[in-house]
């Protein structure tokens, strides 16, 4: 150790003496110094986290240990002698433990077996996940009629098999042990018949008066059948009040479309036809929270795959993003501009003016950077009229939507890259206004029976409406909900709802195609649906949801003479009703862009409310997978934070993790502060959905941003004040968790402008990218330059393996990966990965087999970033295999690097020796062997790992084996595309391709032959089986020049 450091000083003296010594003598850079150094930095120099750049003591401590904090050090005071005694005894006991016999196992055969069921073979059913922004068509894997995996329907024209983190997470939501399991009456257990008698009695009482005093508050209605029932109920009770409200809703889009077209319409963007895309705070690449995410992401990625590059047809799109909080969309953009949320409406108007759609707004001053961005983006748009598109953010004001409509109209995009259609949600309404009027009625005593369907307004209604107080003025409140949540506890009647995987319904995908939601399993706790509630309003109250859905679509599902149910069965089989996609609606009228409000000074703080990227508005807060998976960009697991830029953090006199009190309109909330690279200055982003009181997972996680969310400006509000409070809040941030002690020895260049790992990222080519122009000039860019040489396979001292038939490999397209995390959640579900909790994540023990590394580059305020999914690389010469003392990690004849859990004794040498840091160790018994409902969820083809066992990505070996058995039975080779890994299946952009690299015609083999294909750390001759396709950015050279990017 000592020697090493001397050697280092010597090297430093030769090289950059001054700075190296700074690094060695512990004079660390402060964050402010780092910031100053990074300011204006351009060019390919990478960093992963600021702690790392500054070399804070915490970071130094973290990298010294394989698993930070208390993980590997023997800190006990036991002497060597007594240690050996204890070890000897435990060895003997362990030997004896191996002699135990298995307990008797009972078999419970069916009494009457269901037809067509083959136990041990999964069955797949088509259904759809009804989400407020549009349904996600699904194909659900069912094992003995238990849904065990949720994935996109690969044949559906909308998503083509893609999904997203939330959709993947709904599986755990179904088996959530905290789901409400019974009807509750004033906190006591009750039953459905008792409730129903009471409820129908109340309805009967109201019938004569036409429903006077009756109100229904529902979450967004997504089902056309429910809408039909809703309208019929409204007609039967004309004086009753029917209101929809979701805290994250489409009010802006609907307000704008009403203003522009006089009617509610949805905009569908056709990114496969767009060469230039401008996002006005539209985060359309990070998840289902943006309507049409799956289609938009797929079409976006299709134009970045450079499939025709060899023939000179690059066909690449260019994405400009303007946004406040840094999102994956912004980081994927070729050009990104950080603007405060309250400045974006004016910027949108200015952009509209620049393309000649409207006249320019006055009274706004832009930075020179924003001016340049505006000028060149507008020029690019104008030059690509009809081949460009402007997408407004769902959570931006109506003015931004109007500006986008105006620009798209002016540039002739309508009908080409954007079409206006009927709304996907069957009952569009301005939900914020409706809720306000409902609360006014409640306060005025006009409501005496309130029915709340699948909503949690006590938690999520704007704070100034004081919903709970208003509810106190209502005589009787009934609540249908999946959890016994804040609202459920405050009302007279709570009824447990059925999950969408347990019930009949229907929903429309973003393109309008109708999917039938069919149950995968009988309701676990006998839950009920909104269909049953609304049907109770009608003359024939006992019609089931199934009958109601069939009734709605009877014209679209015609039978045949021989088979009356033919059409219906076809719909259930396919998963959608053919020819129900929306067609373009002639949307007359021209958008008038309202004059933007006066610009707010930078010293006035702005608060921006956004749904959490993982748990959305809070409805998935109890899903452990979604809580644990690090949020994109911030890499925070198990928390939310007051997110702001480094400059704002400094201006407010804060440090990261400080607890602050944010006051807005007199309402206060405590939140921990966190800095985000690239966040707009003078603005604080708060993610909704955390700070729940109940739930074994969600309880006590984060803070509740609804506590200051005003009804007047629910998207972003100005005039907040921030006060530093005593105390700090420890985050579980995962970005620096996978450091390697090697990096300490290698050292950065000490300038504080790129990090140790970042240093390696460039020196050793972990991240390789070029601009489109560079790529055209030098297609081989990924293999030129220093550190890119891959040693000959024969240089290894270990013998090569021989692969006769299959040799599995993976290729990941860095251009397509949008960092959305869908693959990670899919991996959790497929491989029975346990959730470990915040404290374990903080000490570096999270178990995810697949992570998405984010490498930042350049200025702290305006970084670029590169997303790299990183899982076991299945090295040909795997360092882990050589060091395992018990042969628990072995090489298979098809080139997989396998874990044999039963052999593993937990030395962790393998993880120590893994250059990619992708191995995960069960320090404690993380797998939940007790909870009944979770047993149903597990994938029966994968072992549930116990304590003391190492695990890692297996390339979904269970799927490979299943395909092999099928192929062997049929005496053929496995076809290309027959084995699909869980991550590949979930990927909405088809970034991951898996297959047999021995077969020259397979997609993966072809991708590996691409000139852009490279292996990470291949210079140490590991010969990774996973390779990456280097990124190409389609920069607007003039804008780059004007902003001084990549000056070097």
């Amino acid at each position, binding site marked *: 150790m000592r020697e090493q450091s001397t050697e280092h000083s010597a090297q430093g003296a030769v090289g950059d003496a001054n700075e190296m010594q700074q690094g060695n003598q512990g004079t660390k850079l402060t964050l402010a110094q780092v910031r100053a150094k990074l300011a204006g930095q351009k060019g390919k120099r990478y960093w992963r986290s600021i702690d790392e750049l500054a070399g804070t003591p915490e970071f130094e401590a973290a990298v010294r240990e394989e698993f930070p904090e208390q993980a590997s050090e023997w800190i006990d005071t036991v002497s060597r002698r007594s240690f050996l005694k204890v070890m000897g005894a435990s060895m003997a006991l362990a030997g004896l433990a191996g002699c135990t016999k298995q307990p008797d196992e009972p078999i419970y055969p069916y009494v009457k077996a269901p037809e067509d069921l083959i*136990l041990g073979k999964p069955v797949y059913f088509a259904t759809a996940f009804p989400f407020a922004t549009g349904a996600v068509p699904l194909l659900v894997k069912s094992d003995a009629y238990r849904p065990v995996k949720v994935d996109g329907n690969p044949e559906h024209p909308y998503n083509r098999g893609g999904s997203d983190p939330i959709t993947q997470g709904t599986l755990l939501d179904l088996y959530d042990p905290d789901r409400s399991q019974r009807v509750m009456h004033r906190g006591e257990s009750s039953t459905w018949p008792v409730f129903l008698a009471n409820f129908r009695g109340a309805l009967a009482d109201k019938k004569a008066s036409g429903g006077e005093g009756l109100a229904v508050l529902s979450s967004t209605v997504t089902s056309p059948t429910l809408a039909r029932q809703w309208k019929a109920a409204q007609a039967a009770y004309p004086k009753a009040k029917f209101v929809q409200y979701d805290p994250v809703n489409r009010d802006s889009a609907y307000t704008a479309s009403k203003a522009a077209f006089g009617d509610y319409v949805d905009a569908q963007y056709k990114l496969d036809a767009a060469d230039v895309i401008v996002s006005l705070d539209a985060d359309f690449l990070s998840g289902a929270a943006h309507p049409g995410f799956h289609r938009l992401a797929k079409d976006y990625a299709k134009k970045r795959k450079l499939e025709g590059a060899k023939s000179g047809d690059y066909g690449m799109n260019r994405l400009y993003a303007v946004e406040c909080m840094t999102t994956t969309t912004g980081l994927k953009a070729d050009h990104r501009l950080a603007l405060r949320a309250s400045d974006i409406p004016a910027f949108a108007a200015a952009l509209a003016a620049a393309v000649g759609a409207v006249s320019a707004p006055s009274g706004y001053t832009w930075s020179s950077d924003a001016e340049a961005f505006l000028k060149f983006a507008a020029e690019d748009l104008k030059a690509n009229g009809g081949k460009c598109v402007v997408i407004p953010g769902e959570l931006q004001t109506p003015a931004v939507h109007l500006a986008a409509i105006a620009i798209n109209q002016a540039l002739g995009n309508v009908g080409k890259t954007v079409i206006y259609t009927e709304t996907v949600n069957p009952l569009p309404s301005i939900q914020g206004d409706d809720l306000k009027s409902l609360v006014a009625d409640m306060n005025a005593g006009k409501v005496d029976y309130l029915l709340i369907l699948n909503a949690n307004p006590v938690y999520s209604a704007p704070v100034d409406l004081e919903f709970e107080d208003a509810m106190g003025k209502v005589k009787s409140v009934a609540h249908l909900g999946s959890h016994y949540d804040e609202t459920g506890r405050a009302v007279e009647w709570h009824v447990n709802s059925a999950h969408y995987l347990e019930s009949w319904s229907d929903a429309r995908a973003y393109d309008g195609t109708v999917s039938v939601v069919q149950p995968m399993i009988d309701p676990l706790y006998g839950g009920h649906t909104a269909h049953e509630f609304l049907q109770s309003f009608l003359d024939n109250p006992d019609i089931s949801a199934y009958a109601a859905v069939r009734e709605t679509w009877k014209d679209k599902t015609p039978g045949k003479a021989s088979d009356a149910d033919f059409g219906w069965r076809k719909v259930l089989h396919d998963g959608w009703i053919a020819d129900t996609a929306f067609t373009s609606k002639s949307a007359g009228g021209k958008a008038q862009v309202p004059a933007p409000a006066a610009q707010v000074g930078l010293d006035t703080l702005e608060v921006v409310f956004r749904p959490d990227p993982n748990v959305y508005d809070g409805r998935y807060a109890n899903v452990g997978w979604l809580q644990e998976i690090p949020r994109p960009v911030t890499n925070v697991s198990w928390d939310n934070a007051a997110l702001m830029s480094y400059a704002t953090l400094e201006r407010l006199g804060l440090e990261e993790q400080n607890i602050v009190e944010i006051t807005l309109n007199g309402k206060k909330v405590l939140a921990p502060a966190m800095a985000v690279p690239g966040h707009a200055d003078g603005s604080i982003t708060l993610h909704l959905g955390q700070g729940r009181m109940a739930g074994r997972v969600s309880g006590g996680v984060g803070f509740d941003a609804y506590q200051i969310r005003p009804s007047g400006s629910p998207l972003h509000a100005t005039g907040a004040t921030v006060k530093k409070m005593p105390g700090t809040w420890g985050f579980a941030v995962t970005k620096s968790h996978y450091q390697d002690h090697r990096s300490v020895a290698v050292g950065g260049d000490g300038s504080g402008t790129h990090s140790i790992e970042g240093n390696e990222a460039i020196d050793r080519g972990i991240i390789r990218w070029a601009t489109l122009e560079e790529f055209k000039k030098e297609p081989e860019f990924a293999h030129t330059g220093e550190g890119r040489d891959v040693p000959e396979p024969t240089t290894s001292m270990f013998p090569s393996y021989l692969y006769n038939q299959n040799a599995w490999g993976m290729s990941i397209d860095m251009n397509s990966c949008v960092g959305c995390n869908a693959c990670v959640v899919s991996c959790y579900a497929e491989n029975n990965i346990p959730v470990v909790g915040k404290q374990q994540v903080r000490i570096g023990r999270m178990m995810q087999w697949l992570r998405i590394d984010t490498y930042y580059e350049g200025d702290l305020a305006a970084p670029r970033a590169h997303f790299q999914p990183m899982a076991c690389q299945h090295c040909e010469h795997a360092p882990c295999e050589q060091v395992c003392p018990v042969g628990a990690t072995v090489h298979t004849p098809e080139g997989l690097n*396998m874990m044999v859990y039963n052999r593993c004794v937990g030395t962790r040498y393998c993880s120590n020796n893994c250059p990619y840091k992708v191995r995960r160790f069960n320090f404690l018994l993380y797998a939940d062997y007790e909870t009944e409902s979770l047993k149903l969820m597990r994938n029966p*083809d994968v*072992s549930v790992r116990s304590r003391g066992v190492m695990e890692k990505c297996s390339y979904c070996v269970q799927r490979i084996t299943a395909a092999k*058995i099928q192929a062997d039975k049929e*005496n053929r080779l496995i076809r290309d595309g027959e084995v699909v890994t869980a991550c590949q299946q979930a990927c909405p952009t088809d970034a991951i391709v898996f297959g047999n690299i021995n077969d020259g015609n397979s997609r993966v083999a072809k991708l590996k032959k691409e000139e852009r294909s490279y292996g990470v750390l291949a210079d140490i001759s590991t010969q990774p089986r996973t390779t990456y396709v280097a990124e190409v950015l389609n920069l607007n050279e003039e804008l780059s020049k004007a902003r001084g990017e990549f000056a070097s």
Partner: protein
Amino acid sequence: MAQIFDRSSNALARASLVLTGLIVIALGVTLDQLQRSPWVTRQGQRADQPVPFSHKHHVEGLGLQCQYCHTSVEKSSYAGIPPTRTCMNCHAQIWTNANLLEPVRESWASGQSLVWTKIHDLPDYAYFSHEIHVNKGLGCSSCHGRVDEMPIMYQQNTLQMEWCLNCHRNPAVNLRPTSEIYNMAWKPASDLNPVWCAAVDAKPGTPTAGTVSCTTTNPGGGTGAGGSEQASLHLIPAANAQVTDAPAGAMAAPQLNYTKFTSQEALGQFLIEHYHIRSPRELSSCEVCHR
């Protein structure tokens, strides 16, 4: 001062040294044997079952075919335990009042499963697939023994990993034609039980059963010694038409070139080649059974 230890102590000390060694060895051997003993493996143990179901009676006596109850053995990893309904197919008509069958009637009436004790119980981390074994020429009796002669079901083999590997490292010793999978009386090919096999000119993608045609009677005419004995025990009443697994077209084609096998090793090698059995290296790789 008198000596504490007299001369005999030397011998005692030597003996105890030897004895200690022996005890350690004996302990090791005992534990090793214990681990392989029927007490641990349950080999040969008859568990208490709700109904003393006799495979001997139903298979040997009545001639039920294995798949009548174990329906998914060719299609899934799991062979399948019959639902109560399968029992009631017959027992709604015969032995309707038998005391022994009371649990079955009880299950049928109440809708509650009969709870059997699993006899062939692999550890949860071992993933075994019936499907691939029976489709590739491994018969029921190779692992389960003469089930047709078991009045009460028991486990014939240890089902321990070394036992699995014995075959995975040398599958030739246990392979048989797929037409003989359900033949409980199958004996490995030998001078006394010769087997005639011919490769069928099959396209790739033909299921394994269609790739080879085998018979235990001499296809060239005359009866092989002992062949008739095996044939008479066929569970599928195949009469004298012994060519049971060749496709219909091949049956009519007399030009099949049969080879006579009088040793199991030779038959096994022939089947390995024509059934496309993976190599021992692949078959004994960890991920085949553990994941």
